[in-house]
């Protein structure tokens, strides 16, 4: 693995080739491996190692970026020249700020996210776990498909104003689908520490879902009370957080335009962005090296705060919207410059309400007269960007709830659901957990029970 010292040495070599007013290098990479299985067989099994240096130069309000994965002197000279050539031909941008000072990264540290045993996982370790998963499948007369991946990565941001931020972490993930003749079940988990993953436990839950949803029947589309497991919640709510960037509001492409400070969701919805949360992952600094702040985005249903990169905060302060959007300050949520997106909160933590009110998924089912339990959602896309209507499908374990019990598997539904309406109709929440889906980045969310969830069609399985 690349070290902090090696990253600093690369930056020193990069600087030697530059004539720019300011220069920044992001050095990142690592090694990763993924064992993939299907039909109870490991059918793809890959590993890679690679590192990249990405150089941003600035000439009087003009900036550009160039990237290479070669670290010899000729390649470093070339990448600096490529960045400078792209920057020089532009018109100056009066909104471009000087690079962040060293102090901006101060205090950017979080919980340990690097675990030696995760970094050291071997193909044999992963194959053993997959063997156990396949064992669960075979003992249930099912077919298993899924992945077991692990990685060790690093990221350094260094600039000519003396800023130097460094992050290293490991990651591990298991995703399991169990297939029966006409049904399936699914589970997924990830963690920086592989000891938090239990391949057999995940497999047994997925297998139970596959077994219990066998012979799925069609239920007429309509509005139902639904119990959404955390992965389903994550994949839905993930579609709104890019709208919490200050630049999204300045660009008038956010559903929060004209809605800041209003009560948009139910009083039981409070959401934070918190990179230091023990169940979160990722670096404690943003794409400019600025320390990520803990910030409350939604308080008891009221849209409270936006996140800002440095330049978005400056622009917002000067804009006519300045008096309508709450506190304006750089929050350490910017993407690497230059970019059109600005910033976004990427370490979402739902509060989940008072602990005493938390319900397990089983308790939510038990309190439901008639409804639908959703394990997972699929192919979610935005239908309406301002009302935040999303469409998508249920998948891999959809059940009818009758009189507080799961009574049968259901054919999968298509939904067209407004997120705003959904978060206004949450009747119960569970303990927030680190959840992982396929449509959004990982976050800390609870399972929820929602009334009037809008299923519009049913598919053939």
């Amino acid at each position, binding site marked *: 693995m690349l070290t902090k010292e090696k990253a600093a040495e690369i930056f020193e070599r990069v600087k030697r080739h530059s004539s720019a007013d300011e220069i920044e290098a992001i050095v990142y990479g690592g090694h990763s491996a993924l064992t993939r299985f299907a039909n109870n067989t*490991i059918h793809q099994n890959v590993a890679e*190692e690679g590192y990249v240096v990405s150089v941003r130069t600035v000439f009087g309000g003009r900036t550009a970026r160039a990237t290479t*994965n070669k670290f010899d002197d000729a390649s470093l000279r070339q990448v600096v020249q490529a960045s400078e050539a792209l920057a020089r031909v532009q018109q100056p941008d009066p909104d471009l700020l000087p690079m962040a000072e060293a102090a901006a990264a101060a205090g950017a540290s979080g919980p340990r996210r690097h675990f030696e045993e995760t970094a050291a996982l071997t193909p044999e370790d992963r194959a053993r776990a997959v063997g156990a998963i396949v064992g669960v499948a075979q003992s249930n007369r099912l077919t298993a498909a899924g992945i077991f991946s692990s990685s060790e990565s690093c990221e350094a941001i260094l600039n000519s104003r003396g800023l130097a931020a460094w992050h290293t972490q490991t990651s591990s993930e298991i995703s399991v689908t169990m297939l029966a003749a006409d049904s399936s079940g699914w589970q997924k988990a990830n963690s920086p520490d592989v000891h938090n993953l239990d391949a057999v436990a995940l497999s047994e839950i997925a297998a139970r879902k596959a077994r219990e949803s066998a012979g799925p029947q069609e239920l007429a589309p309509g509005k139902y009370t639904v119990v959404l497991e955390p992965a389903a919640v994550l994949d839905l709510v993930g579609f709104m957080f890019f709208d919490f960037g200050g630049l999204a509001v300045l660009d*008038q492409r956010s559903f929060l335009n004209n809605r800041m400070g209003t009560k948009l969701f139910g009083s039981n919805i409070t959401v934070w962005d918190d990179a230091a949360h023990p169940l979160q992952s990722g670096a404690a600094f943003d794409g400019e090296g600025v320390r990520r702040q803990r910030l409350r985005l939604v308080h008891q249903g009221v849209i409270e705060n936006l996140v800002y990169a440095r330049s978005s905060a400056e622009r917002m302060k000067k804009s006519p919207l300045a008096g309508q959007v709450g506190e304006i300050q750089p929050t350490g949520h910017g993407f690497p410059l230059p970019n059109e997106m600005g910033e976004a909160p990427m370490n979402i933590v739902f509060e989940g309400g008072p602990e005493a009110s938390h319900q397990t998924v089983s308790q939510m089912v038990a309190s439901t007269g008639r409804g639908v339990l959703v394990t997972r959602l699929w192919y979610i896309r935005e*239908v309406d960007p301002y009302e935040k209507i999303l469409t998508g499908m249920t998948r891999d374990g959809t059940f009818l709830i009758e009189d507080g019990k799961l009574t049968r598997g259901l054919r*999968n539904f*298509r939904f067209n659901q407004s997120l705003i309406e959904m978060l206004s109709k949450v009747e119960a929440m569970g303990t927030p957990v680190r959840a992982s889906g396929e449509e959004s980045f990982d976050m800390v969310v609870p399972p929820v029970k929602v009334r009037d969830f*809008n299923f519009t069609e049913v598919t053939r*399985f």
Partner: protein
Amino acid sequence: MKDLAAWALNTAKTRGATYADARLVDERARSLATKNGKVGHASDGASQGLGVRVIVDGAWGFAATDALDRPSVEATAARAVAIARASAQVKQHDVRLAGEKPAVADWTTPYKVDPFSTSVEDNLGLLLKVDAELRAVAGVTLAEANLNFRRYEQWFYSSEGADIHQVKFITGAGFAAYAFAGTEIQKRSFPNSFGGQYQNKGYELIEELELVENARRIGEEAVALHSAAQCPEGSFTIILDSSQLGLQIHESIGHPIELDRVLGMEANFAGTSFLTLDKLRTLRYGSELVNVVADATLAHGPGLGTFAYDDEGVPAQCTPIITRGRFTGYLSSRETAHAIGEPRSGGTMRAEGWNRLPIIRMTNISILPGEKPLTLEQLIADTDEGILFETNRSWSIDDKRYNFQFGTEIGWEIKGGKRGRMLKNPSYSGITTEFWNSMDAICSRDQWTLWGTPNCGKGQPMQTMGTGHGAAPARFRNVKVGSAYKGH
């Protein structure tokens, strides 16, 4: 490059691989974007590396590195072998590859102007002209434009003796106008949404697109959508423009014909397929007018799925997928061809880059145009009542590819054979085979465009790939319209 590959292949063979291939990739990209009169981003990327794929003990292993010195290359090949040995611990049977005569070849995308030879200043100048046209329209609140160039050079060597060098140029551009007012954000894009049009061509593509010439109209349409009528709900005759039909093909034909999905290999992520093996040559997929091919050959055009050889060294081919409405072919690989009784791969394996394993990908999955002359305006004139859908806005389909729902940026009411008022928020939905069986007209060759989808995601780890989709405007009867807004 040959020496590098030899280090890898020799190491793999020495350590017990019964098959090995090595792909070396040298890639360069330029990406430029403007937003509201300023440069949004300007970036240049270069990447070089090696991927080694092996079969040991009847199982696959793959390892990749960007360190191209001899010790690193040999260590990477050794890692691939060790990974394959681990794979062999969990298998039901050995991997079998369909035979393929090893090719020795050198091929380059035909192009007129190397996009990297054009000046960045001119590139940005073009985008800023488009931007100015968009923002000249009162009510446009956000203008975005982009240009993307990619040069992808690959050397493929196999333990069977293949030695293939290919260079591809990929060029793309597009723009979008947003209009926010009241409680609506409306958007129009050109020439297609989500980045525009992409082909395996040089800079000449940009000159063909007439970006500046179309910007004012697109800006005006984005604003006009605010005062347009809401798309109605019900059963309608619909006409899809060629770009939307291209995406319809991608989602409801291109993905379900991938044989790896059919065989369960993608069950955990991308999903499986309703096209089980018993449906080959028996299923009526669409009406008699539906003729679809998977064509990677240059004769089909400069699509994002055009190449000389796939990433297993199999020559580009044209496979009939739907023939006069009947389902006739899958996308296959050397490993999967035997499952459909084929002695040879269909040549569809591609990898995103040096660090990814080749998997089955769509090539150019295109519907053939109608044989009789028919323009879009003539098709509208032939339609008593219906809705014309233009430019995709949202797309979703289930994991077996039965139930789909698409939204487009704009719709037009058709009444008495004439294009009438504008409709906002149009959507339609259906079941794949019912939909394709309802097609009763398709426009002719002069209305046919080979669209590029640059961002098709598949695989774990995720790989993004460009695919091509030729399509002409087509008409469908009794389609469910407006479900996306039902209940809101």
